[in-house]
């Protein structure tokens, strides 16, 4: 793999930089070198050193921009520079002061079905899980990542935190109110709710 990426070094570097930027900007999360490499298929997977070079190039590119690339525990993240906070703060003041129904539904599913992936949640009809939602729940420290499912894409598994239990005054997850008398519609494994033939999709 190393040999391949080395030989194409000149050609791939600019593109790799763009791909990494796209991934970091779209995910809004900290991504590891491995996750960045995994954006490519096996044959085209860039070498670790190429990824590092691309990250360094991005950091230079951002010198005069409003964003910065920072290394945090376990990976890299793009964030808005501190000096823009006063301006950006205006945006957040307009935000609604209530959580959306979709966010609460996402939280409820994580609480009752943990550990659960984003697509497990999405598979339950009608709940779209945006990155923003997961971020909001993480920032509130109500959910955290407890692992990855070993399926393609290695999706994160979410579970609730101690803070969640404390906020809702629960001694443990067992103390969650029992599910209502609905006949149980949610299979945990395999998740089989998307009806591909549904004409409304």
């Amino acid at each position, binding site marked *: 793999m190393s040999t391949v990426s080395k030989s194409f070094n000149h050609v791939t570097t600019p593109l790799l930089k763009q791909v990494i930027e796209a991934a*970091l900007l779209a995910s809004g999360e900290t991504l590891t070198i491995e996750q960045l490499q995994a954006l490519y298929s096996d044959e085209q997977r860039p070498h670790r050193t190429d990824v590092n070079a691309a990250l360094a190039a991005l950091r230079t590119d951002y010198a005069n921009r409003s964003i910065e690339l920072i290394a945090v525990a376990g990976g890299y993240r793009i964030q808005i520079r*501190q000096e823009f906070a006063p301006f950006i703060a205006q945006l957040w003041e307009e935000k609604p002061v209530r959580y959306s129904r979709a966010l*609460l539904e996402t939280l*409820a599913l994580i609480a*009752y079905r943990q550990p659960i992936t984003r697509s497990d949640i999405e598979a*339950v009809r009608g*709940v779209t899980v945006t990155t923003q939602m997961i971020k909001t729940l993480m920032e509130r420290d109500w959910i955290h990542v407890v692992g990855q499912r070993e399926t393609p894409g290695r999706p994160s598994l979410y*579970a609730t935190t101690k803070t969640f239990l404390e906020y809702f005054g629960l001694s443990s997850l067992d103390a969650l109110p029992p599910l209502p008398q609905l006949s149980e519609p949610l299979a945990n494994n395999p998740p089989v709710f998307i009806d591909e033939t549904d004409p409304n999709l």
Partner: protein
Amino acid sequence: MTTVAAEQTPPFAMVHGQPLHELPMDLYIPPDALEIILETFEGPLDLLLYLIRRQHLDILAIPLTEITRQYLVYIELMQALKLELAAEYLVMAALLCEIKSRLLLPNDNPVDSDEPDLQATLIQRLLEYEQIKQAAVALDQLPQLGRDVFAVCIAPPMYLPRRPPPPVALTDVLNALQQVLKRAQQFTAHQVIQEPLSQRDRMTVIMAHLQTINSVSFYDLLTLHEGRAGVVITLLAVLELMRAALLDCIQAEPFAPLQIRLCQPSANHLIM
């Protein structure tokens, strides 16, 4: 369709009351694909349009007898395959037959104003439907958010002055869950018995535990004071996590302690 001819091989379909043992050649559809193709029609107009366009015919000069015949063959095939046939298909069949019968009648009353209306209306509807059909395709080809283009989502600066996050009551969460379950229920393929929450809890504890260390002995996952029930719950949790391909369970030799660790990505996963 009310009588079924007693034949040695059951007829594929009944067309005009006659058993049909082979698909008409001019349908150009392999039998396996027939059901799928029939299901893809969005209605009688779509089917009619398909029959017309398949033969590169001009909507403004449709060979009525032939198209009507083909349309009726499709309708009978759909009924033979027990596809749920919307009433609209039958209404269209009746309309086509009516137009056809009027054309066949001696045209001794050229000022009959009804006849051109029926035809012109149908053709106008076909044209209009085709236009929307193409517009839908064009719409689908626009760059869609989350499919073709992606929103940016990056972290705001720290210490951002912000208003306190909204309060949430546990009943809100419960209500949300109830709603989502109610919705999901309509799409359930089969029913599964709810597992006890304590096992879910245990699964999360085990996963969280394994984030900090590489592997753990199964015995270390057990807590003495939980007794027999605790062992059962832990075992079930481990089995469930193994089934979900999250955990590997390794035994170096017979009767050696079981080592539990997070699943390693296998070669298969990388290929996919």
